[in-house]
């Protein structure tokens, strides 16, 4: 899994504008259809609605009739797309020219998985799309029609409506190319900020440019209006995030409150199994390694007067956090999958953000950057040993455009 053939493009100067008379999704699907027909792409990986159901499944398709049920931006996130791409390419690279259509958080997960050698990028064009968030899975499953309506509404307004999941409401990384000068995706679909009459296809890497070329699309439309709008939304969401961090932290921090968050946890580990970053074959916390003798557990109960079962719930959550927080992309998959409605993605997102800041690392925005725990600098973190005696260091250069 060698580094990508991407060459850095400083900043996408312009994009191709696609008319969207019949709605933006139709317009995007139209482009994909053409791409398949002209063999600009051999196949596309995209969410497709399973016939006669309201469910979306990820499908790698080349049959254009399947595109009829496809949705580049479904109202819910089923399986995290980064994880799906890893499932597709983990054991060998694809030798067809395919595209994967992912939300920004899914794209970033894909990049993290790439760094973790769980994914091949060869022959894959990553297409990211501006994302207004997703409806909580349980709400969608309970009332699909209503949810679809509220999602359409969200797509109109773009300001992180209450209808979407909590982490989506406070997500300010909803549009990739504005985050960084380094490429995460190859082609980005700009939605927010445009009139409903058109969609922007913004090439980010030569691969992305090549697709446009093959489709005879000229990247000649200005991005200004779109960028302005992105900035606006980003500002609103960042402020909301700030407030959230403040309020939420007060609610969950401290040993008592933190453990209380997980009072309802039943150790189903759904959060871990749907997490795109939790790539381990078997989670350490599901292994026999931490298992103790009954005597030890008994002793632990005696020391406390009572001991909750299932065992080691907090160890699992804290431990998982310590394993993946630096790469957490705040996609919210964990919370969607939690049968006990624990605000797990919010907790992880908060901790993720703060640890990532400490390492000055934003997961998934740069394929070339090394993983924080696979690297070190000789001079860094001197404050961890002598907090008073030195200036805190940041290990990396600032990489994210703020």
């Amino acid at each position, binding site marked *: 899994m060698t580094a990508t053939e991407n060459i850095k493009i400083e900043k996408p100067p312009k994009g191709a504008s696609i008319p969207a008379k019949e709605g933006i999704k139709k317009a995007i699907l139209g482009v994909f259809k053409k791409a398949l027909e002209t063999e600009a792409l051999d196949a596309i990986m995209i969410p497709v609605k399973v016939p006669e159901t309201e469910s979306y499944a990820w499908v790698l398709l080349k049959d254009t009739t399947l595109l009829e049920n496809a949705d580049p931006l479904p109202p819910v996130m089923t399986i995290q797309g980064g994880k799906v791409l890893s499932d597709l390419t*983990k*054991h060998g690279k694809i030798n067809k020219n395919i595209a994967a259509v992912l939300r920004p958080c899914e794209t970033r997960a894909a990049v993290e998985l790439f760094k*973790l*050698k*769980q994914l091949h990028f060869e022959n894959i064009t990553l297409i990211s799309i501006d994302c207004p968030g997703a409806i909580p899975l349980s709400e969608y499953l309970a009332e699909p029609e209503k949810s679809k309506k509220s999602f359409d509404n969200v797509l109109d307004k773009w300001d992180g409506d209450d209808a979407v999941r909590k982490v989506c409401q406070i997500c300010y990384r909803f549009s990739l190319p504005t985050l960084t000068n380094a490429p995460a995706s190859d082609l980005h679909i700009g939605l927010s900020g445009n009139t409903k009459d058109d969609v922007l296809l913004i090439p980010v890497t030569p691969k992305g440019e090549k697709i446009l070329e093959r489709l005879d699309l000229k990247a000649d439309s200005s991005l200004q209006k779109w960028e302005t709008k992105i900035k606006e939304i980003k500002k609103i969401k960042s402020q909301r995030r700030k407030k959230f961090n403040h309020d939420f932290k007060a609610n969950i921090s401290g040993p008592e409150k933190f453990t209380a968050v997980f009072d309802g946890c039943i150790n189903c580990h759904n959060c871990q199994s749907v997490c795109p970053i939790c*790539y*381990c*074959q*078997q*989670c*350490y916390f599901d*292994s026999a*390694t*931490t298992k*103790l003798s009954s005597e*030890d557990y008994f*002793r632990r109960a005696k020391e406390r007067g009572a001991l909750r079962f299932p065992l080691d719930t907090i160890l699992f959550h804290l431990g998982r956090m310590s*394993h*993946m927080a630096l790469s957490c992309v705040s996609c919210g998959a964990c919370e969607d999958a939690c049968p006990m409605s624990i605000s797990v993605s919010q907790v992880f997102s908060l901790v993720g953000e703060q640890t990532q800041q400490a390492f000055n690392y934003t997961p998934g925005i740069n394929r070339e950057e*090394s*993983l924080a*725990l*696979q*690297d070190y600098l000789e001079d860094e973190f001197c404050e961890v040993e002598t907090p008073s005696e030195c200036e805190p260091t940041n290990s990396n250069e600032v990489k994210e455009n703020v």
Partner: protein
Amino acid sequence: MSKKIGVYICECGTNISDRIDIDSLIEEISSLEDVGVAKKYGLLCSPAGKKYLAEDIKKEELTHLVIGACSPREHEQTFMKVCLEAGLNPYLFQMVNIREQCAWMISDKEAATRLAIKYIRAGIKRVALHKSLEKIELESNPDVLVIGGGIAGIEASLSLAGPERKIYLVEKTDALGGMTNKFAQLLPHQGANLSIVKDKIEQVNNNEHIEVFTSTAVEDIHGFLGNFEISVTNQEKDSEKKEFKAGAVVVAIGFGLYDPKETPAFGYGDVENVINALEFETMISSGKIVLKNGKPPASVALIHCVGRKEKGYCSKTCCLYSIKFARYLKDKLPNVDVSEFYQDLCLPDKSDQNYFEEAKKKGIHFIQSDEIEIKDINDRIKVKYKSAEGKKEELSVDMAILAPAMVPSQDTPKMAEMLNLPLDETGFFKEAHEMLNPVATPIEGVFVVGCALGPKNIPDSIVQSQAAAGKILSTLIPGKKLEPEVKTAEIREEFCTGCQTCLSVCFYGVISFDEHKGISIVNEAICRGCGSCVGSCPSGAIKIKHFTYPQLYREVLEALR
């Protein structure tokens, strides 16, 4: 099989018994599961103590042993030997440090006893989880691959070759000798001169135990200490490929020279009669010291430290060979005016100073300056410089000889990648340990010597080659098997996800990635057992023998009792 753990507490004279209530300790722990024997003894490390212990292990048919005494750094080895004598696998033993950690550091006897009990309990619980480990023996090939036919490579080959050890000496050019081929004379260390080098080349060519490959490039090296597989191709004979095996590799690929053009201020390439040191050596060899116009120079400037600022290090040899040049000039052209422009005179060898003093006596000028610029003014070389007093001055000369910095050979990055060797920030190879292990590398069995490690003179290069030879001769002995570290890391295949984090954190190149299986592989033969890989693996797919999670957890649990 049921366990029978023997616990022995050493009184250490009164060192432990004075400060720890050993009797109550023994009482407390003797009822623990699997504890068969719990006893105290006056001084276990004494000959009598060891004998007693060995006999007791046998008599009691102990399956595991715990000793509460001093630091394992003191006597772990001692008691491991006792275990061996008594027929008990020495890894089924745990040494518990109750002297340094408890008796000597805690004056409250009760508190010290309490802590000692914790430690002993932890030792008992831990030892129950110990697995017997066996030393493994690996066949090894005593032959050595030497890469680079310069003086370092030649010396390494000569020092190593013998009836039981074949040397493969691979040189990329068509002749042995390396840079020395370009030298007209050597610095007069201990009366040495170039004929020594010629002799050595002769010896190499006549040595039946050395196979010399010239015009040959190393294509691939795989394997580890004692078992490297090498393939080389001859660049001339239609890329003829050869494969052979060796037990160690000595990299002696030498150095390159800084291109003075990179610093335009030296005028190299622009100003006529500004030449570099190698070019001057050629002149000496030809015996004709002349300017472009065919006349001998009346005045010469020798410029030290060309590229030092840019490269960030002193090349050590330039001062001395510049002095050599100056002396040569004075000898050949008695009336010539010679000035040496230096930043700092670097004369670290004990005979250097004399050599320098003699030059001064011959009337050579030495000018200290940190700023030098060479210009062509009216077909004369003008050396503009800032003097030690801080004044701007200039000197016109007929000829200027630049002493460029020594830089890593251009083959260094490729070689580094092939052998998985790290480079340091100057671009030279990095030593296994800069202080204690100066010619070894993190990859066991691979050595780097001479200027491939950094700038140095010929004697130092030769010492390094001999040092590498010393290490190889004493570790890779024909017919002797290698005994690698026992407490190594081990991949639990079914749990490995192939993220290769462990690869990036291992300094010794022990872990490789099996593309086919999609998992990491530990080469236990060269693992040193630090456990960094274990610390880095989120799924616990690596374990480190003798320091497994369950064993450490046991200690933690008992610490919290």
